[in-house]
């Protein structure tokens, strides 16, 4: 079915690939140096490490599995291999034949001592890819963290073009897009909800992660399915030679990461677990309070946990197998009971959500120039909220209602990396995903004593859909000054006897200007077949994933970006401008709610519209030395238009933010003491408020009386702004290295100058009883300590 629908396009792509193969067919005077770049001690693959030939001034970056392939003319060559945080390795090689060589880099130089090759592909002006940013995990861990709990997504929010949804939340709003437009990949598997604790923390445990990057535009053809960004997070593979453990105790949670060899240099594992313990700490206090008044008891509960695990097995010199798994769950609830003699009543309210992913990956080196990765994955997100009430009088009356929604994906994917020569790097592949959406069903159980018991399920049925795509891209040098990445991504969705397909051209160029400057430009068209329905006024996990259907057309966007970049000494500077047009955006209609009435379909509650986002981003980043960090500034606009919202007029997106500034600095005072600081400023969030009210009526059902009511008149959508947001966070870390391990004592202060930032607004009364509308903040200065031990 898929291939019959793709038939014409598939043939054209195959013909294109064949042509490319012929054009770049193996040069008989060229040989290939290939292998993996890895950590010399742990065997961890170093994705993005650069392998550079100093003679030919050609190089290549290792792919996400650490594999590199560099084809050069026969003869002797000087090769230099670099990676951030590792000592560069320089060696001479005689390429009279294809050579397979795994390159081991020694860590320990840290960022401050790294020597950067002048020719390194890591330099921003050398890369064709624009709008992509990576932050080393080592640097992330040294930044201030609320409650001592490092959060990867909160660090990403400090980058230009990436904004938070509100104080303390982990949601990402990238270049005017909404959170569902971000493809969050953990070991290549999409995660649908990344929130713990109602969004205050993300599900990504920094101790289990080895690499993180975000792409905001100029998307290469291998990516698709979302409009605004691609977030790639890779778990550690596990130490191949020794057992290591890393434990952290903070005021919010504790976590433990263990890794080591199963068979030395052959197979390894990594396990990481994290759990909050607020519930364990307050349970004795609540139990004591309940003992004092046993007739009325209240038991609140909240915790979250997550587990990361990975197995890594080198089956042979050309084959590797990876098994990754993640599970995270939040459980919030409150139970109360009242006893009055022989009568009693109980109430139990619960809200929980969980994520699970599993991935099995097989790497294969077919030849020195052809590498493949085959992946089978499963991803599950589930959200439940429910209430159970029991009344015991003469009869026992009980009522239970459970609302459930979720999404489950099964996916298969194959990707090829083909490096025909040093001037071309071709990637192509295919993906198929089966989605099952459960867009909100309510289970009702009733027992009224003398009436028949009811046990029924109400709400829309599950929706199944199949999504597939093919892609091909080639990064190549057209001249010494001009590098290009051209590609095409073709996707299709089949749902409810309807199919949507989309051909998405992708292009990026890098033109070297005089003076070492690089001019970059990109164009990307994207399509998205899954949608998140979310109430913009709430930060609750009431998110409802729904598919494009026969009635709901897919979201689509096109984005063009241009910029210049240059490295001044060890400081990278990049200035980019972008414009993004979006259509098929999905939103609740006015008055709609995720708690759909039982006879109303979710498709009746939504409306589709268009949007745009444009702006300029400046990033000045210092990656090396005793002092590292960056300054980011974003000037941006983001607007929406829906026929059924705001009377059809354009309005600013809720997270339209005109100015966004961040300063991030980390400094190593001595080998023992490290300090870091983060200051950020953002224009206040847009919001809609009721401005006035009036009275109206409708005739009642008989037509003889009238029903009068007072109606509030909202302002134009998002016409008001909250106060600007600004905050300073500080952190100081003392490190002690002992024979039996390394200890870190981390003291951090969130919101150091105690600026109460607005979190929400509500109608209130002043001292004279007159209505006023006030902004409220909930986060004052929050100090915290954490203790970390690793061996």
């Amino acid at each position, binding site marked *: 079915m898929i291939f019959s629908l793709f038939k014409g396009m598939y043939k054209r792509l195959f013909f294109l690939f064949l042509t490319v193969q012929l054009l770049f067919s193996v040069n008989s005077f060229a040989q290939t140096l290939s292998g993996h770049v890895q950590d010399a001690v742990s065997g961890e693959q170093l994705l993005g490490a650069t392998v550079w030939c100093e003679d030919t001034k050609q190089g290549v970056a290792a792919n996400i599995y650490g594999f590199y392939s560099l084809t050069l003319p026969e003869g002797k060559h000087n090769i230099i291999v670099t990676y951030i945080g590792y000592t560069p390795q320089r060696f001479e090689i005689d390429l009279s034949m294809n050579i397979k060589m795994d390159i081991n880099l020694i860590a320990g130089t840290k960022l401050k001592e790294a020597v950067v090759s002048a020719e390194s592909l890591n330099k921003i002006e050398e890369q064709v890819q624009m709008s992509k940013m990576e932050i080393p995990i080592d640097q992330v861990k040294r930044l201030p963290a609320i409650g001592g709990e490092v959060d990867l997504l909160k660090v990403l929010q400090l980058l230009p073009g990436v904004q938070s949804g509100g104080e303390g939340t982990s949601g990402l709003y990238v270049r005017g897009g909404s959170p569902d437009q971000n493809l969050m990949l953990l070991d290549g598997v999409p995660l649908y909800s990344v929130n713990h604790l109602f969004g205050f923390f993300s599900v990504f445990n920094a101790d289990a992660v080895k690499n993180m990057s975000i792409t905001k535009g100029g998307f290469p053809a291998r990516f698709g399915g979302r409009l605004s960004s691609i977030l790639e997070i890779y778990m550690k593979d596990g130490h191949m030679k020794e057992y290591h453990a890393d434990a952290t105790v903070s005021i919010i949670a504790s976590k433990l990461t263990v890794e080591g060899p199963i068979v030395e240099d052959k197979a390894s594992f990594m396990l990481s677990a994290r759990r909050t313990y607020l519930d364990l700490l307050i349970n004795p206090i609540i139990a004591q309070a309940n003992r004092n008044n046993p007739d009325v008891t209240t038991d609140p509960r909240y915790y979250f946990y997550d587990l990361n695990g990975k197995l890594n097995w080198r089956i042979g010199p050309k084959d590797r197998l990876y098994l990754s798994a993640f599970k995270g769950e939040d459980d919030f609830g409150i139970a109360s009971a009242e006893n009055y003699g022989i009568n009693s009543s109980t109430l139990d309210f619960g809200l929980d959500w969980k994520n699970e992913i599993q991935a099995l990956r097989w790497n294969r080196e077919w030849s020195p120039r052809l590498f493949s990765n085959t992946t089978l994955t499963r991803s599950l997100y589930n959200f439940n909220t429910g209430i159970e009430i029991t009344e015991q009088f003469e009869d026992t009356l009980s009522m239970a209602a459970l609302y459930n929604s979720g999404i489950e994906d099964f996916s298969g994917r194959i990707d090829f990396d083909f490096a025909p020569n040093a001037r071309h790097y071709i990637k192509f592949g295919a993906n198929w995903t089966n989605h099952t959406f459960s867009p909100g069903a309510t289970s009702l159980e*009733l027992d009224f004593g003398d009436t*028949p018991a*009811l046990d*029924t399920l*109400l709400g829309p049925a599950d929706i199944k859909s199949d999504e597939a795509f093919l892609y091909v891209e080639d990064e190549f040098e057209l001249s010494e000054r001009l590098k290009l990445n051209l590609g095409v991504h073709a996707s299709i969705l089949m749902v409810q006897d309807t199919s949507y397909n989309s051909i998405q051209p992708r292009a990026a160029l890098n033109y070297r200007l005089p003076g070492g400057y690089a001019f970059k430009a990109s164009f990307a068209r994207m399509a998205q077949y899954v949608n998140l329905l979310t*109430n913009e006024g709430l930060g609750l996990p009431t998110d409802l994933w729904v598919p494009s259907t026969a009635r709901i057309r897919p979201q689509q966007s096109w984005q063009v970006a241009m910029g210049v970049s240059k490295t001044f000494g060890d400081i990278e500077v990049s200035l980019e401008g972008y414009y993004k047009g979006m259509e098929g955006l999905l939103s*609740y*209609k*006015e*008055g*709609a*709610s995720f708690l759909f*009435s039982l006879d109303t379909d979710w*498709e*009746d509650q939504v409306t589709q519209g268009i949007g745009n986002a444009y702006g300029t981003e400046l990033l000045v980043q210092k990656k090396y030395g005793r002092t590292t960090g960056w300054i980011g500034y974003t000037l941006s606009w983001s607007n929406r238009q829906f026929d059924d919202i*705001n009377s059809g007029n354009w309005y600013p997106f809720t997270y339209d933010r005109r100015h966004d500034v961040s300063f991030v600095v980390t400094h190593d005072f001595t080998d023992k003491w490290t300090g870091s600081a983060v200051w950020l400023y953002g224009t206040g969030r847009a919001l*809609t*408020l009721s*401005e*006035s*009210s009036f*009275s*109206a*009526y*409708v*005739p*009642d*059902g*008989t*037509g003889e009386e*009238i*029903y*009068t*009511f*007072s109606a509030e*008149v*909202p302002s134009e959508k998002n016409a*008001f702004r909250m106060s600007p947001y600004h905050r300073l966070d500080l952190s100081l870390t003392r490190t*002690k290295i002992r024979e039996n391990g390394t200890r870190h*004592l981390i003291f951090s*202060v969130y919101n150091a100058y*105690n600026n*109460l*930032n607005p979190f929400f*607004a509500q*109608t209130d009364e002043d001292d004279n*009883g*007159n*209505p*006023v*509308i*006030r*902004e*409220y*903040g*909930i986060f004052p*200065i*929050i*100090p*915290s300590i954490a203790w970390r031990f690793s061996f």
Partner: protein
Amino acid sequence: MKNNFIFSIALTAAIGFVSCDRFADGVVHEIEFPEHTPRLAVTVIAGDTDNQIVAQVTSTASVLDAAGPLPVDGAVISLSLGEEDIVYTLGEDDFVDFAYKLTLDDTFGHFDGMMTLNVDAPGFDPVTASNMMPPIPEVSLTYEYRGDTTNSPWYGEVIQDVYTLDLVNHSDVDDSYLIYVDALYIDAFTLDTLGWNQVWLRNQNDQRITQEPITGGLIVSDMNASGWSNGLEDLTFFSKSTEDEKGVESVALRMRVKALSPELAKFYESAGDYLSGGFDFFAEPTLMYSNISSGFGCFGLSSQTIVDIE
């Protein structure tokens, strides 16, 4: 190590203590509102068979005004056919119970052509609105007594009456109808007539039919949520079969079918959304529909057919 740890704990506790004061209050600041200029809000909903005209005229109020919207007296409300041929006028003498009410000698009547509402009140800019009365509904009804059973979440198995309705779908306009069914009850002993009582109607998975939450009727529309036009034939809905209670007997059924002007249909829809959303913490805010020139209220017309159900 020990000293560092104690120092860290002490510092953490001290800063936390200092922060408690602001945490307890939490107010960042009060949001400034532009000064509100009161405007007229007018609601006039009239049907061809009504024998009373009700006009509600209030002033808008800022949300920061504790008194809220207040009725405006001294207004002159005129309804004219076209722009000059005044048909009805309501004035200060008709101001009763915070609204203007004019009892008619006969019914309101059916008017062809555009009707115009003009409201003039001292201290306010005059407002106006236009509306056209829809054609009198042509109804074809099939009724099946105890024709179906269903499982209700609340009552278990329920026997229900089945109504199948055909309405005229005018190709050039958005047709909307408001439907009620009434049962006539008598006292079983004295045989005195107790009056008409509204019967609760229920839709079953027909996108053309939605529940009107304020009055309990059903709204039938030829446009579904995606804006696609549907026919208005074979409209099927249900009511729980009427059961005689102790001393009370149901002796007749009737269906009232009101054709709504498109503006009145939108007003009903937005009022329903607004009022039902007000109780739902998760609901998006609703903007009430208005066709009054000030932007507040509605002038809507309807025409009605009553079908006796055999």
